[in-house]
């Protein structure tokens, strides 16, 4: 009995800690609260309806017409169908779900790692090596971020075609092998604020520049590196436009879902099947998000990753 009381108290306490405001609320905050509640409810309803519908059979949704209600029978037929049959044929090659997932993994992880690593290393060089060129690098990044040039995709496609890297994963890696972007500034600010003492001590111990980079500098920014890598990875996993433009015959999963949602392919024109394919795509990213939720949500700021 004592244990039940203790458990109940703990549960109550936990709930209270989640619900109760840490600061007193007033009229303004209550108005915002009401709006946010409504907004959150809309998200919950839409996501729930989508998930629920993916578990309805084609018979139930299309033929019987149960659109709004809960499934009479929760069925996995749509998921099984997608796993077994989802395929795209491009230029004579067939890409099944696993091919698309593999392409997505390569694209997301590979591009995220390469871009994060290049931004990190170049930012380190620019921050810690006080050559004139370093200053130029910094200003190049700032200027390219602030000057919006439109419509260069076609020129990029042409150049990739000329060097034989169009429509290939290697081409995508080459495209992402650049130091431009906001995260350069994040790394730059971090490296600038790093004291030189650690590197200095390593010099004294006889370490070379490469050794210092690997054994001293990178471990100090490992957390930030990983966070940025995660954010980039999520962005690339979800991105369908870039593969569509530069790798049209090597579909990633998001490209596949986009193709599916607007194609007239017979077997995939059922709403329940399309939604099941969407759910499948979302699962890996939700898993990553759940595992690294705190890292992603608590520590990001464009002004500097909070350590």
């Amino acid at each position, binding site marked *: 009995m004592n244990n039940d009381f203790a458990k109940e108290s703990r549960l109550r306490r936990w709930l209270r800690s989640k619900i109760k405001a840490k600061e007193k609320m007033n009229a303004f905050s209550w108005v915002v609260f009401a709006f946010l509640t409504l907004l959150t409810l809309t998200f919950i309803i839409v996501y729930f309806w989508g998930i629920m519908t993916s578990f309805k059979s084609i018979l139930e949704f299309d033929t019987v017409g149960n659109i709004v209600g809960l499934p009479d029978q929760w069925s996995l037929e749509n998921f099984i169908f997608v796993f077994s049959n989802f395929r795209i044929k491009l230029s004579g090659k067939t890409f099944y779900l696993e091919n698309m997932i593999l392409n997505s993994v390569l694209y997301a*992880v590979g591009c995220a790692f390469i871009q994060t690593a290049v931004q990190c290393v170049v930012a380190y060089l620019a921050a810690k090596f006080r050559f004139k060129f370093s200053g130029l690098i910094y200003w190049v990044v700032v200027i390219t971020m602030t000057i919006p040039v439109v419509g260069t995709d076609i020129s990029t496609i042409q150049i990739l075609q000329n060097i034989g890297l169009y429509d290939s994963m290697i081409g995508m890696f080459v495209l992402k092998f650049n130091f431009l972007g906001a995260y350069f500034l994040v790394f730059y600010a971090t490296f600038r604020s790093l004291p030189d003492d650690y590197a200095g001590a390593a010099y004294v111990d006889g370490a070379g520049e490469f050794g210092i980079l690997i054994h001293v500098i990178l471990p100090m920014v*490992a957390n930030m590196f990983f966070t940025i890598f995660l954010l980039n990875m999520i962005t690339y996993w979800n991105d369908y436009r870039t593969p569509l433009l530069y790798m049209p015959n090597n579909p990633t999963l998001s490209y596949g879902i986009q193709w599916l949602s607007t194609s007239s*392919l017979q077997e995939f024109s059922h709403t329940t099947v399309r939604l099941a394919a969407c759910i499948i795509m979302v699962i890996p990213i939700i898993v990553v998000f759940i595992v690294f939720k705190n890292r992603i949500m608590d520590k990001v700021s464009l002004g500097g990753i909070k350590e």
Partner: protein
Amino acid sequence: MMKRVGVTLAALLMAVSVAFGAAACGGRQGEYDEEVDTDRMQLYVSNYDGGFGTDWLRDIKAAFEAEYADVSFDGGKTTGIQIMIDPNKDKGYQLNFNTTSNEIFFTEEVRYYQNVMNGDFLDITDVVEEVCEQEGVSLRAAQEQGLQYNGKYYALPHYETFFGIVYDKDLFHTKRLYIAEDGSYTNASGNLSAGPDGVKPSYDDGLPATMEEFFDLCYYMKTVAVVTPFILTGEHAAKYSANFVNRAAAAYDGKAVTEARYSFAAEDVAYITENSIKADNSVLGYSYQTQTEDITNANGYLLQRTPGRLYGLAFLEKLIDEDCFEAESLRGTTSHLNAQENYINSRFKNAPVAMLMDGNWWENEATLNDAFTRSEQLYLEQAKKENRYFGVMPIPAKIDKNDANPNGDSDTALDMYTSYAFIAANIPSEKVNAAKTFLKFCYSAENLEKFTATTGVARALNYNVSQTTLDNMTSYSQDVWDMHLSGNTVLQVSQNKLYYENMSDFDSLALIAYGNYAYPWTALRGGIHTAAEYFTGTWQWTEDGWKNDYGAYIA
């Protein structure tokens, strides 16, 4: 912390390398149905796996492989042929002959002449001649010349498609939707009117012969019979309704004018004069003045101005204004398959729909989608496919009884998908003989009949189907076969250079665009343009503009 991060990174990088390896090794079996048998010669066959499926090809594959099991086509290196079928969605204009592994193709939306001029297709004149030597088998009149290029043939016609109206014969009977001789409504056993062809008895007895009768029937359906006139796929409403407009235009203009859209040769073709269209309270909603001229390369632009094109647009406008479509089906997520399934089941849901706007492939497509199977699961015996009777409704080609349109009884249709069977020119030379033999086999009299029996549609050439086969086909397929026999479906073939060097300019769907609108559906439905405005908006060329674009073809 660093160790955890490092381990996680390493794990992800390992995933990447595994991904690389796995991707390199390939996933499932490739696009072909089976493993290569090295004792036999392989022929790689691509089939557009759309409304007609691939079952008909698999049947042919089995028969061919059995028949040629002991034959060597390469001087003894291999014995027998293995047909490797690749069912796909590669339309003709999307094919890349440099990268595809397929050698023989059955597909649609083929830019025949462009491919031939590019040297993509193998010369199969001998195959065509041998196929046409079979009793009862021949090319259609337009194809004999139209498919020739420099005196040679490079493809065989595949399926014949047309768009139109499907109607539920049972529903027409039970709800008394047939038109009687005296203008009232009756069931199939009543004293039916002669229908569009003016002949009794015939397949179209009791069906609307004029636009007026058609819309009176729609009104009767909605107000008395409590039947919704039409279902149309919301997802593809724009394209499908545009197909309907073209079909109605072909019906009203007649065969000669419709053929002239490709041949640019016809006599006394009526066209609507500029600024002569006036809105009025007539059945059509518009009155206009016409003139006639012989059509040649010099004035082909006048074909955009034929009365049929206004008729088709006005027909669609009226269907929209009189609320003839089932509202739910017009939602954008209702695919063509959903629409078919909703149509099939509507009778059993006490919300009957009389007609479906779709192509002649719809029944086969619905079958492949298991729509009839699911219907039977829910509604039992009455819903079995064998117990359903659908038909092809002829498009009325007269506005009202007083309309003197001479084409009123022809029910002309337009073949939509320029579907062909051909062999790639870059097929290895040792396989040419085998490929030609296979193609000939596909076009044997027996297999032509089997194709029709399996898919419910006709191939676009002349051949026979036995009465036994016909009796075993569905009611809808029988009507489709009748349509084929009438020869009223115009094929997109021509010996005129003006057409075949500029095929994409004269695509029927390209020619129905006006300004911001690729198709008339949105413009008409949103009340943005009237049918007359849209009609004049599709007059793509002025006389000068035509000369500017096609002056090189004018003698």
